[in-house]
């Protein structure tokens, strides 16, 4: 492996969160973004050989080492790490609306869901999945929310473009199929 790839590997190992290319460039300003990107690809390939328990993943607009899926059960059982708590349907509904309508105010979320969503939004903000991005026009200049990099991280997404496009969703009402292939 190239010296730069090893430097990037060390930095990613040391970090508890995904690091972006811009952040990695600061390791060696002379290298430049293109070289860092090449190093990341080199590193990913090196770990993709099947000889490792971790892999390099592009996530939340950055890069991160994650354990291979096949070891999740064992690690979970041994309680070396715990799986994150699952989000409730109400939380997922609210996240979906905020992700697609951002920046969006609370009243719009309430209207689409048909229920008061203030408490759910507060909880999502507390978990760092959404944040106030701006204030809207109009009465009281309402707080407008958007999603955070943390949101991409818990979903394993590179960026928001990886969310399904609304046109791809079937809007036609489907009768409840016994086993819906998703």
């Amino acid at each position, binding site marked *: 492996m190239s010296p730069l790839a090893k430097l990037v590997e060390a930095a990613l190992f040391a970090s508890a969160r995904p690091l972006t290319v811009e952040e990695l460039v600061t390791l060696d300003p002379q290298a430049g973004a293109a070289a860092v990107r090449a190093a990341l690809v080199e590193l990913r390939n090196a770990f993709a050989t099947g000889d490792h328990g971790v892999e390099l993943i592009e996530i939340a607009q950055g890069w991160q080492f994650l*354990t291979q899926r096949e070891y999740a059960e064992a690690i979970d059982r041994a309680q070396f790490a715990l799986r994150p708590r699952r989000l409730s349907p109400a939380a997922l509904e609210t996240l*979906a609306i905020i992700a697609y309508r951002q920046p969006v105010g609370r009243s719009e979320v309430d209207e689409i869901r048909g229920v008061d969503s203030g408490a759910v939004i507060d909880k999502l903000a507390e978990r760092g999945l959404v944040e106030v991005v701006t204030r809207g026009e109009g009465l009281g200049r309402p707080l407008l929310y958007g999603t955070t990099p943390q949101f991409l991280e818990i979903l394993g997404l590179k960026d928001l473009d990886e969310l399904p496009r609304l046109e791809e969703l079937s809007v036609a009402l489907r009768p409840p199929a016994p086993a819906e292939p998703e």
Partner: protein
Amino acid sequence: MTALPPTAQDQAGFVVELEQFSGPLDLLLHLIREDEVDITDLPIAKIADQFLAVINELRLNQAADYLEMAARLLRIKAQMLLPRHVGDDEWEDPRAELVRRVLEYQQIRELVEWLGAAAARRAEQFGRGFSPEPPTVPPAPLVIDLNDLLAAAERVIALIPEPVLHRVVPRPLDVEGATARIEALLAERAALGWGDVVGERPTIVDVLSAFIALLELAKRGALRVHQEGPFAPIQIRRESPREAR
């Protein structure tokens, strides 16, 4: 303080979020799917009845969001019953707005499935330095001493603003007194000015009493009131009393 027994609490408790349905739209969508009806041609009467039955059964009929939807459904049901002309272009389907919302909500539900699946898949991998979220600890039992409680109550009471009261007191007009004074003045002089009638520094009651007395005397024909123009001085002149009374 003693806690309510759990059964009473269950009955008195306000339903905020139910495991089964995440809101009235979710329940509505569930009913539509169960009946396998065409969402764009919603059998509103049937759906409204089912909706009411379910919220009664699940004791959701205390939750405002569900009640609001129930009211909406009943209103649409009523609007559908109104007679309309055949081929009336002006007629707007009262269900349109609801159908739009249900379709929109259905889209959200599809996204929820997608997001849930993505999150579940992501949860199969662990990153470095993963720290689990802190467990939610129930709040510590409330310890409070009587003095603190009383002091707090006093603070709250002190914050209550003194209500602003307008006292309405009867201030009877003294029309009779004013009438007597004017008559006495007219007995001495044939003509008076407004200032002579009300006297110096009149109160509002004096002015009103004098004015009513003047009008009354003028009506009786005891005097004549004359004013050149608006805001001009008022002149009062004695009139020989008429006999016909």
